[in-house]
């Protein structure tokens, strides 16, 4: 009975499959979880918000005011609403009804034609930098040209010719659509939930309900129990990958510029990382509750420090160091790289080997921690 037996592994798998099939929760979670997450994150998150409500307080109705308002609206970032007074507009800003207040002072048109270079005040609610960031950038580029059409010829500032020109090519996602960044990342996030959380629960459940004692007393080897528990979740993970890719392409118009086979292979390694971690957690936890908490403990940094929600390069060095150890950080880059950039082997290699290393280390720990006896 020593050594590995395919027959016993098949017996384990058969049992797992029966249990999985009988539990409507597992199937529901497999299909519904990715769909709900996709639609939530894919449609709801926008890192480049447009049409932000802006209060306009104008004491000078003139052609220049209309030019300025028109130019603002043409950027696509501002939707203007007239307010009777500065006080009312500031109140609206404090309440959060508007994110900007634009004040055009009395005698604005006259001052412009006189060449006094008057100032208009734009107040921004900068409490959320992401919300107003792109809009303020657009604003600063505006004033050189906004009024040009209606100015008397002598006031039209000669556009100074800069000593060199910058040509900006926004590659991979030129329209800066957030979904194009978020949705490929979701593949990694959803796989983390289903494989990490589910494996750690599945194995702890055997211990909690006492069936582990029975398994240990029977002639089944630890590696067979481990594989028997893990393989169904690998299958589950791939079903989810397929589902997410399908919805990503058809609903969100995510391009598939690289090789799907390469993506599936790389994600296999990522699944291995999660299963190793889930198995390690399950050997440490005594109850399903503890396993759940351990998985949660790993899941939060995975969301926050991996570059899924916030740019990885924006984090301080120590946070990047933590992030670099998380397999999801690398899986994210691989997903985005293959789908959006058409990356191949050579480009994803720097993200493949850290995952392989992680799987190896954590897998070894998990096997060491798994005991064949009850003590």
């Amino acid at each position, binding site marked *: *009975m020593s050594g590995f037996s395919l027959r016993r592994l098949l*017996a384990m798998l058969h*049992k797992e499959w029966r249990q999985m099939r009988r539990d409507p929760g597992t199937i529901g979670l497999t299909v519904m979880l990715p769909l709900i997450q996709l639609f939530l994150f894919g449609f709801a998150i926008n890192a480049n918000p447009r049409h932000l409500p802006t209060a306009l307080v104008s004491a000078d109705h003139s052609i220049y005011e209309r030019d300025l308002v028109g130019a603002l609206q043409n950027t696509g970032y501002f939707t203007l609403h007239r307010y009777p007074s500065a006080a009312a507009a500031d109140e609206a800003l404090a309440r959060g009804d508007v994110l900007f207040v634009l004040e055009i002072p009395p005698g604005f048109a006259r001052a412009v034609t006189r060449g006094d270079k008057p100032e208009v005040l734009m107040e921004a609610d900068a409490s959320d930098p992401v919300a107003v960031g792109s809009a303020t950038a657009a604003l600063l580029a505006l004033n050189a040209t906004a009024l040009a059409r209606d100015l008397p010829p002598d006031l039209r500032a000669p556009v100074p010719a800069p000593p060199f020109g910058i040509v900006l090519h926004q590659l991979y996602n030129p329209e800066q659509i957030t979904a194009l960044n978020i949705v490929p990342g979701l593949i990694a996030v959803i796989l983390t939930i289903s494989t990490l959380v589910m494996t750690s629960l599945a194995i702890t459940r055997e211990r909690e309900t*006492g*069936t582990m*004692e*029975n398994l240990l007393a029977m002639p*089944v080897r630890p590696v067979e129990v481990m594989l028997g528990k893990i393989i169904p979740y690998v299958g589950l993970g791939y079903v989810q990958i397929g589902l997410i890719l399908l919805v990503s392409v058809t609903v969100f118009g995510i391009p598939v510029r690289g090789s799907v086979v390469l993506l599936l292979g790389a994600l296999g390694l990522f699944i291995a990382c999660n299963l190793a971690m889930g198995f390690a957690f399950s050997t440490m936890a005594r109850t399903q509750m503890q396993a759940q908490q351990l998985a949660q403990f790993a899941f939060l940094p995975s969301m926050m420090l991996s570059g899924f929600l916030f740019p990885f390069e924006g984090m301080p060095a120590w946070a990047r160091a933590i992030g670099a150890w998380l397999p999801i950080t690398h899986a994210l880059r691989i997903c985005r790289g293959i789908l959006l950039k058409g990356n191949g082997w050579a480009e994803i290699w720097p993200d493949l080997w850290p995952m392989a290393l992680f799987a190896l280390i954590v897998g070894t720990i998990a096997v060491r921690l798994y005991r064949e*006896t*009850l003590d």
Partner: protein
Amino acid sequence: MSAAAPGLAIDVHDLRKSFGARRVIDGLSLQVARGEICGFLGGNGSGKTTTIRLLCGLLRADGGGGTCLGLDLLREAPRIRLLVGYMTQRFSFYTDLTVAENLEFVARLYGLSGVRRAIEEVLARIGLAGRRDQLAGELSGGWKQRMALAACLLHRPALLLLDEPTAGVDAKARREFWDMIHEMAAEGMTVLVSTHYMDEAERCHRVVYLAGGRLVVQGTADEVVRAARLVTFEANGTGIEQAAARLRHLPGVETAAVFGRALRVAGMERAALAAAIERLGDSGLTWQEVEPRLDDVFIHMLQGQEETS
């Protein structure tokens, strides 16, 4: 390592096992002959479950050793597992699988040839055939216990280790369960069964009493009773409850308990016990000395344990 005596299914010496600083098994030696039904008795926490787990390789002993079915306990644990059927104290099968599916899983893990036939045979033998397609989680206590027994018997083990198999099961189911155990012992199977029920202990060929991780006394039920040298008196009449309450506090009386219409008192010394009864005065009870029963002896031993610990 001592060579296993040919007639012994279990032959272990000086087993020791600690969990952290707590010593659970403290130099236990145990011999069980092949084909014997050995009752494993002792209070809660006396080490019964731990001993059973040591025997089937679920735990590794810290010290001591021996053989189980002629195989070395420490070095040949995997082979022992193939020959032993272990029934856990707690029902530990998959509640979301049917009886037949659970049995099929076990049969396949043991690599039985002719899984289907083996299952049908064991179902028929244990009287479970009618429930084969019921979910294990929906079975009542008695049926769950039968299913667990069926799963232990599938691979035709030479030794059955049963850990409180009948806890929480009704009297009829318990009797039927024991009938099956006797049937199997008659076919040559060795059975080690832990229990708290005295009627079950009396159905064993031999009982072993454990306290504090040591074997305290062993033998047939009669031998154990005789070895205890307990003196028992029984009284009949009205007012036995009041008499029992008074007697409990008198010197020389270890236990005084009412069973139906009779009051039984027990102690180690006949003279002291008689004196205590004397001190009750004329209570209108008629006293006579009776043979101590196994339960008198065990309560006596459990009390002795509490006093020393």
